[in-house]
């Protein structure tokens, strides 16, 4: 697993993927921060984290598209699958490497919290809680999109499918506030990763919601391993 993690991380920084992901995230994040905080003279990070949560939907496919689908296209997956490393080792190594890039991006985005701390009033525990939820949300998106990448034959199809599924999750969030049926609304809110992130932004360290994100990541990792294994049985 360690070998796969190291190589994957190296690959992110030897190719444009990590730079595009982090660069675009910080660029758009700066726009959100400028509009929501600087222009509005607001110290509230809530709005920034809410808007930045949508960036995962747009940008995680950029990060995950090559992870499995790129290997499949270049036939380098044969090196991994013929090695003594288990499929769980491969999947965890790749997931953790992707999460490292995501974590680095989140770390760099702390500059906005730093600016508020210097020029405004920051509530550290609230901000920390918000960033935790924001990071957990991102890691769940990464796990979902990695599964999509493992299913796809080319990076482009992986990116298109991942973006489509992320968009669907956003629509779930939109629908949850639009439907009149209370039961349906509760179901949609239960599924929506955006609703699950809301308590963190208001400073509540919610174990249930943290477990939701960890559970989604674990489930998608499990499905990724099953997908990789099933390819051995059916591929030509």
């Amino acid at each position: 697993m360690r070998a796969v993690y190291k190589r994957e991380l190296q690959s992110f920084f030897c190719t444009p993927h990590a730079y595009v992901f982090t660069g675009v995230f910080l660029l758009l994040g700066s726009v959100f921060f400028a509009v929501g905080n600087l222009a509005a003279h607001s110290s509230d990070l809530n709005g920034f984290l809410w808007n930045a949560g949508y960036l995962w939907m747009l940008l995680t496919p950029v990060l995950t598209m090559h992870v499995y689908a790129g290997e499949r296209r270049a036939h380098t997956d044969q090196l991994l699958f013929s090695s003594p490393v288990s499929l769980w080792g491969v999947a965890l190594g790749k997931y953790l490497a992707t999460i490292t890039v995501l974590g680095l991006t989140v770390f760099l985005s702390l500059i906005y919290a730093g600016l508020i701390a210097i020029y405004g009033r920051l509530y550290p525990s609230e901000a920390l809680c918000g960033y935790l939820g924001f990071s957990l949300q991102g890691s769940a998106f990464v796990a979902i999109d990695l599964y999509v990448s493992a299913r796809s034959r080319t990076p482009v199809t992986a990116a298109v499918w991942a973006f489509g599924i992320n968009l669907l999750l956003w629509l779930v969030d939109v629908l949850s506030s639009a439907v009149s049926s209370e039961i349906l609304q509760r179901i949609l809110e239960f599924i929506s990763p955006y609703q699950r992130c809301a308590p963190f932004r208001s400073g509540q360290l919610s174990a249930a919601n943290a477990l939701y994100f960890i559970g989604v990541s674990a489930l998608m990792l499990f499905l990724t391993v099953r997908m990789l294994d099933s390819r051995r049985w059916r591929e030509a």
Partner: protein
Amino acid sequence: MITLTSITKRYGNTVALSDVSFTARQGEVLGLLGQNGAGKTTALNIITGCLAPSAGSVTIGGHDLIQEPRQARRLVGYLPEVPPLYDEMTVRAYLRFACELKLVLPADIPAHVEEIAARTGLKQMLGRRIGNLSKGYRQRVGLAQALCGDPEVLILDEPTSGLDPRQTAEFRETLREQANGRTVLFSSHILSEVQALCDRVIILHHGQIVLDSNLKQLQSGSALRLRADIQGDAKVLLPALRSLAGVRRVTRLPDESGVLSVLLECTQGECPQRTLFTLLSGLNMPLLRLQPVESSLEEVFLKITSEG
């Protein structure tokens, strides 16, 4: 070292391999031959664990590939048809990664990489990006990767395909050196390559083994063929040769400076030299050369794969 027992692989209704069984012994160089779509790559992918069989089992060094994948795969180095190379990595970083995958002890990796690079002629290329290497060097990096961890079994899928003649010759020479003592299983379209490198050959046809033979036995087991250069009149000589006991077929070869050259295909087990000498002596036609002609693997391959 490698044992395949009743391996069958189906893709939907298509049967890629049907009840394939064979054993490759320690130190044996085994060539896997077959037309496109015969099942060679499928067989190699199953042996390396990249594919799972629909039925049957594979053991490597006594370890079942499904029950003990880690132990079995540790013994195998695999060079697929398309070398699994990461273009963005340097050769050194890539070989280090391959060593880590093969569970080489971290402290041993730098020396091991240097040693493998020296053995495969990559010492000068260690700092180069793989994406910038020529096809021949890429293939060498692929072979070096397969050698990481000093595996007891080497599996190579069409290792010289796409190389120019010089690169092919160099690659074969490297392969011959590295095969020493290892069990090597490789598929190839190039029959002369199999003939030059292998001890034993297996021919797959429509997913089934149609021939499994020692190469020397294969060549010596077929009926004797003789090339004869005779000074004489073809009109008289050819009918006389055709009526000779023990000769199944007579083929006239292109004449060289007035000398009649013929290929005599003998009946299995027959050796008609004595009757030939007697015949020519009676016709007063001197025999200038009589030479046995070995049947090539190509002829055997074409014969077997054209049947059924």
